[in-house]
């Protein structure tokens, strides 16, 4: 996208876009028509940039929030595990918690 200088003099505004994998250049115009198209494109580019920045910021916010909930979950899981072990339970094959069997007397 941009202004091209012509051999005969003057500037001509063009746009490039992809069509079926090929780059196609559209010749918009010179003078007022070219300036209007350039302003439109500039506006659209800024809008996209703002949208992308907003999206990035939102993702960072969500990551931070998710991180805090994960930390909370991990910490309380850790506590549950410790409490179960301290109460005499044992996790069987990383699954069910079972009360640990007391060794028989004389063994």
């Amino acid at each position, binding site marked *: 996208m941009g202004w091209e200088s012509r051999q005969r003099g003057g500037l001509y505004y063009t746009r490039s876009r992809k069509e079926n994998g090929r780059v196609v250049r559209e010749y918009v115009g010179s003078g007022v028509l070219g300036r209007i198209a350039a302003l439109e494109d500039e506006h659209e580019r800024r809008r996209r940039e703002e949208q992308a920045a907003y999206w990035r910021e939102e993702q960072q916010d969500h990551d931070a929030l*998710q991180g805090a909930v994960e930390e909370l*979950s991990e910490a309380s899981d850790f506590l549950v595990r*410790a*409490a179960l072990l301290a109460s005499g339970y044992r996790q069987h094959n990383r699954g069910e918690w079972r009360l640990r069997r007391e060794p028989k007397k004389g063994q």
Partner: protein
Amino acid sequence: MSPRKANSATKHEESTSELIEDRGKLMALIDRAQDGDEEALPLLRKVLDEEPRVARIVDLARNVERSIIEKMTGDDVFTQEAIPRNLKAMRREIAGEKPAPLERLLAERITVCWLELQYFHAIYTQNLHNLSITQSDYHQRRIDKAHRRYLSSIKALAQIRKMGPAVQINIAEKQINTSG
């Protein structure tokens, strides 16, 4: 003395405060208890009694809750007031009558996970028509993860309740402010 016992005796000398500071050591202690090391249990109980991080978990839950509410409500002060009231009722309902400290903590976790799930759902629904396929995938993955966390929070409480009153550990109850 068996290698395990010798190992236990050495590690037993580690002070509780050292263990509190080092999460890795705590995890190792839990693993030792899980492997049947009887000598790890008294130290583990001591850590549970003295663990200041436990009180911080409840604080963390409340902080997360506040930030989600702020994000959800923006400038809407009425909803900012209403949501914490609903959450309080929800926490009470989940924790039940005279809950043990651990049950109260897990009830906090369930409400936070529920709120997180509602928040991610709300964002997705609000933006549904403006999202690209990539963005939509991103939101759905977030929702799936939040859903998994919510389910495991419920599972943890169910597990503790299933074990009954045997799992009633004093988790620095005095430091936990669960009012509200």
